[in-house]
């Protein structure tokens, strides 16, 4: 092949590839909105606040961004909304170990940001982030779990609490909580955490049925 024909191959081949890419882009643009809930004005306001504070300078979203702080794609599924509201305004007030600075986010801005994060959590991301494979394996094992333990898993308590080294670090470690607290204390605490631990970031679980509360309390009390 002469240099001239190689040059032509480069020029026309590249233009060809680019045209295919443009066609795929058009097709994708037509499909993106169908893969996510409708964007309300709230969500859009939240996105603008996301840009205003340069959140992507520390966090990732949809896996893209900085790798300095947690990915926020599914954060609303991991942390209760009430917790997030307090956290965004003053991170250390609900998580003393957090290294996120106080940026001056107002309560209103926090609401908008959470709407935006609720929207992003519902985007169809082809299954990303994947469920942790080992956690998934343990939850589908044949070991029978009590009703209370099942609730603990379903309510995603491990997002904040740790038992035997597994779980989050925001809330107290529950490995031996049964030897520290009475059954009554634990039961009533579920209904109104703030009354027992002033300023607690834990949301109330008073909306659970009496049976559910009892099952959960039985399980937590058994942790000694």
């Amino acid at each position, binding site marked *: 092949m002469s240099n001239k024909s190689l040059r032509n*191959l480069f020029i026309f081949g590249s233009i060809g590839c680019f045209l295919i890419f443009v066609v795929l882009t058009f097709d994708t643009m037509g499909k993106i909105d169908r*893969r996510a809930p409708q964007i309300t004005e709230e969500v859009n306001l939240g996105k603008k606040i996301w840009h205003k504070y340069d959140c992507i300078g520390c966090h990732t979203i949809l896996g893209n961004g900085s790798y300095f702080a947690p990915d926020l794609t599914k954060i609303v599924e991991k942390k209760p909304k009430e917790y997030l509201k307090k956290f965004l305004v003053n991170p250390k007030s609900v998580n003393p170990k957090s290294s996120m600075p106080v940026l001056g986010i107002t309560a209103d801005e926090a609401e908008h940001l959470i709407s935006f994060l609720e929207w992003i959590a519902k985007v169809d991301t082809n299954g990303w982030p994947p469920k942790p494979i080992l956690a998934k394996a343990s939850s589908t094992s044949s070991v029978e779990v009590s009703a209370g333990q099942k609730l603990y898993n379903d309510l995603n308590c491990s997002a904040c609490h740790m038992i035997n080294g597994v779980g989050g670090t925001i809330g107290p470690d529950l490995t031996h909580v049964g030897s520290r607290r009475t059954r009554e204390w634990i039961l009533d605490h579920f209904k109104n955490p703030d009354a027992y631990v002033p300023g607690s970031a834990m949301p109330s679980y008073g909306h659970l049925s009496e049976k559910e509360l009892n099952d959960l309390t039985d399980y937590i009390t058994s942790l000694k």
Partner: protein
Amino acid sequence: MMVKYESQKIAQHFFTFGVLLFLVQVIVGIIAALQFIWPNFFFLNFNIIRTLHINALVVWLLVGMMGATYYVIPEESDTELWSVPLAKFQFWVTVGTILLVVLGYIWMGINPQANSTRLFGTGILSEGREYIEAPRWADFLIALSAILFLFNNFMTVLKTKKWTGINGTLLAGLTFLVLMYIPGMFYTKSMVKDQFWWWWVVHLWVEGAWEIIAGALLAFMLMKTINAPRYVVERWMYIEVALVLFTGILGTGHHYYWIGTPEYWLWIGGIFSSLEPIPLIVMVWDAFRTTGEYRTVTNKVGLFYAVAHSIFNFVGAGLWGVIHTLPQVNKWTHGTQITTAHGHLAFYGAYVLLVLSMIYVTLPSIRGVKEFSGTRAYQAFWWMTISMIFIVLTITGAGIVQTTLERLVGMEYSAVKMNYNLWFWIFRALFGIGFLIGTAIFVIDFFTLGRTPVEIRYHETASEVT
């Protein structure tokens, strides 16, 4: 060694600004590394430091490429640059804009609320979008600078109408680069579309336009440093840049796996991005083959850096990229430190070494020295390269731990970062200091090359120094 045309010396303005920003980039990089250990280490938060680290990188590489272009185009077109005053004006527009943007970032770091004011649809201090944080008003000034730059170079070629493969490919790459800035300049309500267009800019720059520029500059450097014949270097250049775009354009798909885009991107991205290392290995082969065949070395240091660039381009952008490019792997590694490791080695190999080699190839003639001592250049290279290899290995290690504990076991991000990866951060910061030493040696070499009397003592050809 003398420049063929006096106007080629304008390149030095751009190189000087680039080299200073390189130093800034490395210093803030070390601050960022320390913030991984102590988050409150500095008066500016990590987001601002990281923005400065990456923006300094992007800008210094761009101005380095601009300088290289101002050198290459007159020489290839056999004429003086169309307008030196215009090039100087464009230079100062760029410097002014960048300084204003940097001051804005620092102000925002001190007072985050200062970014509440909006202008032309973005915050007045930051757009809040990774890598292209520069606010919209700055985008306009950057676009103006880029258009003036392209115009000046096109007019130069049109003076003699002497289109060579190298100046044609170089200008094609630069035009593509400027055009691909546009998809980053509008607001979309959907974060998915936002990221979709954002990758047009980011991916089509670094794995498209910039690689074309790299291909053209590599061809130029092989001609300059070993007197390789034009038809040989241009032949390989066409093969390389064609393969870059055939694989790279549709390879953008590897960023469209998990951001809310249709599933067919898993196939397109997986297949095409797996092929992306091919042009990079061709570049390595080209560099070695051509060097082996034409052995009249006229600039050893320049050749050394150019060959090193081709090797680390392949290792950093190619190998470190391809390991996590298949969707089956990427599903677990996406958004972890594995990406950071790839980013560091790819930018170092593909573009830092490219601009540094262009500086070593062109600076002796700009300064009018026939020969120069390569001692500092080699010292700088080994300090930087060995440090960078270890920086990348520590971040890769952190990425493997993170992927295992966070993605497979389900541990919390913060627990993994602070408890299990702490040693990696400590070693990364230490190697960062090694990299800074290398950078400092290079900066000293850049400012003294051909200017200090010490240089002359090394060579018998000193009398020819003008």
